[in-house]
């Protein structure tokens, strides 16, 4: 994570608590009620809507001491029984007024009756800037407001002074080394589960994370940091940084971050990085703004790419062989192999440049396997892929060509200069010519039968038009009769 701290930090830094007379707050109320209530010794504001269909009940206040370009963070703690209860930051107009070209950012409360801190980070574009809290178009609902705080935004993760990192030992199946547990102002927790770890953020202010520094990787190496992560928030993330520690403000350094979808299900997250400095940091956690959210992680791994490529290649080769034997669905395998090959091809140039002979050999082997899998297979007189075939006394031969690489029919081209080629319908034994350009079709379920006649030796070449590797053609020679 690269953080740029602005040189001129805006001056605003306020905690607004409510008073019974609602001093400093402006109200607008259509078919609703706004009242001050006492709860556990402090004053709260309760906004209630009545049953009327058109209602708009809001309190708002101008934020002074900000100027255009300032980046501020507004947090409002409240609870509601409707998701139409909102925290709205409006610039250049008050929420509820019709103004074109104003600035508008909103976040909604959840209808869960739980005290929730909503946080909005906003860059001021229009002045005056207002904080608005209210309910729009909801019948018989309430919003109870506790407090509002406004401070300059320093980044999604904690500033250095806030950090309290502790070195911890993770469960046995996690990567070795010193992991740092980072929990801002003790507003969160980390616990070990059977398979991995669980992080919990108590408040929206919490930055709860794990990180680990490394200096063992060589420059130019590709590393992959991966983990299976389960979280109900999109702020759950996995990161690899290069030349700086996650959480420190550094400019123009590479990093790669992957976020969870927030589905609450296990997802495999992976971040790749080509190392360009002596220090690499890997991190896993939730950025700020995740009040009462959690993250579970297992199978946390840091791998060098070159360590996994041989197994990837072997796996691909095995699957291609299975495909050739028709014991697996060819289309599914094709897609898998294509994906692997495209990924590996991208790395080929880098390995070549680094003169990594082991990797180059490995990738070349995969390429060969792929070509082998896509090269046409034919049978003549019971022999598979004969290099030489002798014409019979009729000066012709028959070959059966199979499609073993695709789950649908493919077109092939046969180059046989000087030879006459006919295709045969196996049912009616009808013979007919090929398409222009010596093209013919090979279905997935049955062979194409060709009859080749010639008066001389002919070098034939079979080329499939549906292939993903170069050189996927088969050559054979037809020898003349006597």
């Amino acid at each position, binding site marked *: 994570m690269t953080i740029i701290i602005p040189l001129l930090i805006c001056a605003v830094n306020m905690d607004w608590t409510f008073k019974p007379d609602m001093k400093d707050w402006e109200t607008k109320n259509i078919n609703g009620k706004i009242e001050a209530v006492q709860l556990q010794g402090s004053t709260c504001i309760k906004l209630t809507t009545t049953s009327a269909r058109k209602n708009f009940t809001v309190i708002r206040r101008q934020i002074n001491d900000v100027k255009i370009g300032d980046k501020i963070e507004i947090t409002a703690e409240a609870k509601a029984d409707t998701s139409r209860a909102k925290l709205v930051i409006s610039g250049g107009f008050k929420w509820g007024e019709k103004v074109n070209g104003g600035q508008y950012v909103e976040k909604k409360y959840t209808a869960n009756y739980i005290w929730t801190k909503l946080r909005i980070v906003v860059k001021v574009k229009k002045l005056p800037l207002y904080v608005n809290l209210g309910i729009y178009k909801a019948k018989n609902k309430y919003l109870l407001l506790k407090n509002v705080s406004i401070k300059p935004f320093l980044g999604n993760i904690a500033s250095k002074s806030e950090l309290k990192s502790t070195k911890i030992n993770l469960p046995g199946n996690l990567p070795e080394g010193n992991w740092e547990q980072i929990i801002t102002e003790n507003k969160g927790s980390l616990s070990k589960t059977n398979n991995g770890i669980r992080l919990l953020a108590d408040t929206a202010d919490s930055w709860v994370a794990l990180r680990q520094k490394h200096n063992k990787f060589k420059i130019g190496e590709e590393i992959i940091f991966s983990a299976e992560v389960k979280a109900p928030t999109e702020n759950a993330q996995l990161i690899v940084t290069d030349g700086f520690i996650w959480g420190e403000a550094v400019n123009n350094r590479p990093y790669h971050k992957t976020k969870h979808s927030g589905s609450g299900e296990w997802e495999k997250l992976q971040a790749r990085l080509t190392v360009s400095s002596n220090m690499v940091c890997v991190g896993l956690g939730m950025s700020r703004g995740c009040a009462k959210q959690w993250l579970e992680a297992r199978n946390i791994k840091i791998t060098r790419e070159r360590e996994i490529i041989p197994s990837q290649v072997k796996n691909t080769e095995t699957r291609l062989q299975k495909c050739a034997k028709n014991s697996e669905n060819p289309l599914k395998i094709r897609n898998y192999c*294509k994906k692997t090959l*495209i990924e590996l091809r991208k790395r080929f140039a880098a390995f070549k440049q680094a003169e990594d002979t082991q990797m180059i050999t490995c990738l070349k082997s995969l390429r060969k396997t792929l070509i082998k899998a896509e090269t046409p297979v034919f049978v003549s007189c019971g022999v598979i892929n004969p290099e030489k075939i002798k014409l019979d006394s009729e000066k012709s031969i028959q070959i059966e060509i199979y499609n073993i690489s695709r789950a*649908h*029919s*493919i*077109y092939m*081209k046969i180059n046989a*200069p000087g030879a006459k080629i006919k*295709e045969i*319908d196996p*049912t*009616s034994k*009808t013979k*007919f*010519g*090929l*398409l*222009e*350009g010596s*093209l*013919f*079709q090979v*279905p*997935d*379920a*049955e062979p194409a039968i060709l009859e080749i006649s010639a008066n001389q030796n002919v070098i034939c070449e079979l*080329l499939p*038009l*549906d*292939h*993903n*590797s*170069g*050189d*996927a053609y088969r050559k054979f020679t037809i020898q003349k009769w006597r």
Partner: protein
Amino acid sequence: MNFMLKSYMLLFCSGIVLSTRGALVVNFNPNPWSNSNPVKISTLKQQSKTVLHNEHPVFLVNVHNSSSKRLFATVKLEEFNKVKIPEASFCLRTSVNIRTKNGTLKADPLPRLNKEQIISIPGGESRQVWLEFDASKLIPGQHDYTLNIQNINNVPVIQVPLNLRILPLASNLKPDLLVWDCSLRGTEGETRELLLTELVSSGVNIFHSICEIPAKFDDNGNMLGIPDFKELDQIAKVLKPHARILLLRAANLFKQRKHRSKHKGYLKSVSGKLIAFGSPAWKTALSQWAQAVSKHLAASSFPNSKWAFYPYDEYLGSGFVTFAKTVKAAVPDVQIFGNPAGRSSQQYLGTLASKKLIDIICPTAARYYAEKAERVSLYKALKNSNVRKLFYFAGWPQKDFSPLKMYRAQSWKALAWNTNGWGYWTATGVAKNLWGGSPWDDYDNPRPNPESLYIEDGVVIPSRRWRAVRAGVEDYALISLVRQKATTATAKNTIKNAIAAVMAAPDNYKIYASQRQKMIDLLMQLEGIKK
């Protein structure tokens, strides 16, 4: 029973598909220009077309095999009243799927069916039958055909009705069409003839030759003897009947070679001395050489108005200006072609046009799409000049490009932008497959093959993209004819709206079909032909 009644009865009985017999299901493809794989489509529409007398209408039929076994079917075209159809007037093709460098499967090549006109359809799959007519080989009037599709192991025949109306009108107002590297790809004999026929019939009229015209010079740049015109003569003889303009890259000899650090000039005298670019000796050499080329071509029935020098590719810079000034000083009416591609070339365009140092400009289409200010300056530079205006596109993998949006639409763009025509790189590639290996294999070279014709010894197979080029050229000719005849504001407005409609949806076949029909209707109305 008359033909139409018979057709409608057939449609009525067959439900949503056009017709079925056993495992075979036949219907019209709603978009002949889609290069996606043919699929079973349940769309029914009676196919009738009205065309000019020199057009090439296309009908596309899908044949689906609903069984699990492969079937073979014969495809035969018959005229309803059993009149024999001239063989040269139609051609039956099919589409073949080919894997592109992007990994997609495109139905791009359109080879002819075999002599027996048999297609194979694997179980559960569809095949396309592409039927194209050459209307110039048919008599104007109404032609009602049936395309008979029959499983070779079964008797029942599926009859697909087609109606073609040929108007007694033709339009030769075709756009300038340039496809690069028309050295005819180094082909010879029958293949060369086939290729030339294919290019000319699709509207190519600006040919680009990469032949050299070597000459010898002394140290002062004086030409010794006459240049060697052997290569030029060969190509000029072949292209003479067909070329609106012949572009000569022969001026390569005099180009500035900045990237060669050892010497600035490329030209050498017989004594081995380098003649520096722009030097007095270089100017003398170029002037004498240009005069000799002009004189020789004029004697071969190629006056200066029918050919142009093409000194630099995708560049209009100071080198271009020096070249143009020298050539124009020697032979004032010789034409010079430039195809600016980068922004840096733009600044020279105004200068070149105003000083009449460029005669044919062909910028990339992107320059016309560029932000408004740039477009305005380009138009300003060209507005009052007599420059011949073209535009072009290039790129790969072209097999993945949409035939409608990238090929047919270019002619409509030429109409919208009021240019003389357009060009693209490339239909044929150059000799010895320099551009990305074989057209049949996108994986035999780091760069995929960009050609839109599949050429090999004795065979030239068009692609769907190439046929879209021809359809666009015919659209241009039709609209230009209607434009010529339209005198009322309403008619002119109809033409304007048709062009705008296609420009707004260049990948929508329905829009092309409907707007083209409007143009045909307008032409018939203007010419007093009954519908």
